[in-house]
């Protein structure tokens, strides 16, 4: 083959593959027996440590559901990844939701994991009527305002089984007060989740009577926090509160405190569930000790009903559960429960997405390994639970948990 004809061949191959794509885009031959539960989580790169354990939880729920699935039906997980280059990406998320919505077999989706991804996905979910249950989105505005429900402002299609940041931030502020912090310095990673959480903490800690010495935002991909920490150190805080996740700076900030004039054993570190991952222990090293954090979910290990889940999880995935594995599991269960109910109502015939959505909307007293809960008029859990943790001896230690539903 000459060089020129090789060129042509390559170009033609590209075009053929374009046609191939078109072919592949033709509607899949829907095997009527399959009911799909989508997951839409970041499962590659740095975010995989969050996404994979959550996806595993959902996988487990699907596996269990298949043990006693309604006759003629089989559940199947359809896992999609919203990480691009290792970081969760709203655009990818929205595209994923749209492809899931286009597949009639998908009855509901567990996800997304990150709040900024949710902001791009809720409008699509709202338009297509595809139920979305997030195991972990904690940004309050996602549900509490209708601004993301662009097509049908009064229709709720997005739900979450975790407590929101206003609850978590408040719990964090109370926790801080109980720990005896009077003056804190707040740092956040300038991302949707981190900034939101830090702002709530900021306001609540002040209203609890504490004083905030300063509030700074860091930049993504930063390695050097010494200048910032030197500035923080000069204000002599009782503790540093960090709104954000480990990868965007949580781990490194804690680790660099020691070399910036603050002894980590004397100046505690507090954060939200963003630093609840094992990465934090690794990156911060010995400095991780004397840190505290809140998680917008109960500690599954403490709940008797969750023991079976934990055992099954370990058996299947050969690893410990993640902070949101149980939530992923429960979110999938909610969808599966709604599907079961719809099939029953239809007399054994396939359910419609609208039916499933309706059932999910009216979820009440759903018994689960994270307690019994329902969804309120915005799609939020009626039983938000916050668990408080600390890091001691290089391990994450559960302190206690609080149910904030009464307190509001």
């Amino acid at each position, binding site marked *: 083959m000459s060089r020129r004809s090789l060129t042509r061949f390559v170009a033609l191959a590209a075009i053929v593959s374009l046609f191939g794509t078109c072919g592949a885009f033709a509607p899949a031959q829907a095997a009527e027996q399959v009911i799909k539960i989508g997951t839409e989580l970041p499962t590659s*790169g740095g975010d995989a440590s969050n996404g994979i354990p959550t996806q595993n939880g959902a996988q487990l729920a699907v596996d269990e559901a298949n043990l006693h699935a309604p006759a003629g039906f089989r559940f199947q997980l359809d896992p999609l990844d919203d990480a*691009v280059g*290792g970081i969760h990406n709203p655009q990818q998320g929205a595209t994923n939701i749209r*492809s899931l919505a286009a597949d009639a077999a998908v009855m509901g989706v567990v996800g997304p994991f990150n709040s900024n991804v949710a902001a791009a996905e809720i409008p699509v979910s709202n338009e297509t009527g595809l139920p979305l249950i997030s195991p972990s989105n904690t940004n309050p505005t996602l549900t509490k305002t209708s601004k993301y429900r662009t*097509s049908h402002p009064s229709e709720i299609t997005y739900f979450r089984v975790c407590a929101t940041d206003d609850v978590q931030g408040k719990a964090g502020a109370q926790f801080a007060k109980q720990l005896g912090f009077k003056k804190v310095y707040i740092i956040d990673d300038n991302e949707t989740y981190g900034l939101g959480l830090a702002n709530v903490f900021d306001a609540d800690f002040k209203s609890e009577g504490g004083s905030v010495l300063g509030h700074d935002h860091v930049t993504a991909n930063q390695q050097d926090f010494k200048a910032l920490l030197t500035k923080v150190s000069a204000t002599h805080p009782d503790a540093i509160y960090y709104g954000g996740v480990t990868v965007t700076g949580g781990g490194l900030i804690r680790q660099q405190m020691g070399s910036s004039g603050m002894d980590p054993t004397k100046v505690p570190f507090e954060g939200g569930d963003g630093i609840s991952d094992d990465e934090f222990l690794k990156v911060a090293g010995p400095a991780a000790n004397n840190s505290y954090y809140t998680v917008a979910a109960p500690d599954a290990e403490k709940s008797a009903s969750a023991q079976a889940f934990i055992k099954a999880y370990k058996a299947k995935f050969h690893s410990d559960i993640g902070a949101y594995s149980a939530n992923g599991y429960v979110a999938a269960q909610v969808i599966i429960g709604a599907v079961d109910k719809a099939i029953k109502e239809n007399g054994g015939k396939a359910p419609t997405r609208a039916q499933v959505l309706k059932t999910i909307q009216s979820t009440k007293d759903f018994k689960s390994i994270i307690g019994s809960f329902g969804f309120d008029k915005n799609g939020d859990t009626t039983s938000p639970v916050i668990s408080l943790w600390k890091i001691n001896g290089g391990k994450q230690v559960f302190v206690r948990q609080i149910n904030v539903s009464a307190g509001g």
Partner: protein
Amino acid sequence: MPNWRKFRPVDWALLVIAMFMPFLPLVDHNGGHLTVLVNAGVYMMLAIGLNIVVGFAGLLDLGYAAFFAIGSYTYAMVASPQFGLHFSFWPMVLMSAFVAALFGIILGAPTLRLRGDYLAIVTLGFGEIVPQTFLNLQKFTGGPNGISAIDQPKLFGYHFGLNPLPYYYLVLVLLAVSLFLANNLRTSRLGRAWMAIREDEIAAAHMGINTTTTKLAAFSLGASFSGLSGVVNASLLTLVSPDQFKFNVSITVLSMLVLGGMGSLPGVVIGSAALSILNFWLLPEANNLAAMVGVHIDFTQYKFMLYGIILVVVMLFKPEGLYGSEQRKAELKERGTSVAAEENAEYEEMPRETVL
């Protein structure tokens, strides 16, 4: 009017595909697939714009995503609850293109006198500053949350909503217009001036070509295309946030150009189509296939590695790209010491005051 006799088989194939594209939604109703195609179209428009800067005028712009951001934010700020403004989509398409072009001039005017590689770094710096500034200016841009609930276009009373179908046609039309305009530019007085500057800047200046304004025209026209795509992108996604406009967007678009062939419009189309298919379809599909046989490899993770390989391998072995113009091929293959190149370097080293 294209010269039919010069058509190569690939050109005919492209034409046939282009003819088929409007009918695709009749065959494929899958909204997910259409969304993928719309996204691919947005990237193709970006590639057409960057091609004007890099391919036609030979200026390496590594911060192209910044203009994409500016276009997106322009529309987002005036068509969302952010400031309670709800400007109509259609004039804003032009307006955003204009604003992006304006920023092209603002950035270009002081920097285009720089030698080529410095320009690349300055644009890269600009590409880093813009999203960071949007992130920091919370009051105007919503900070990390970005701006959400962006309005969708209406046409003769028909509300686009979030249904990808009308966007699909919108993008097709915009693509056709973009290609038409880009091709016109290429075969015009301005296009010839760009080519001349790319070949030998000093000679071009002596032929009466004002190199500064000519380069500026490339920069701002290129930027205006990203403004267009920004508006479409913002309205379909209903959300703009700073993290959508990082360096990897600029590199993705550059890889499309390099793969297809810098300076060649069919090349740009082929390159951006190929990488979009790879991105949105081939890699995720490969994941699923691997998962089916029980292998859990995340192919999407290797995407940027692949881009890196494309950039290196194509530049080394086929610098004109899969479908480059003959001219570009000869130009980039040039071995041995080219007098013009040497003298250009010399010229660039001249003391400031003596340079144009």
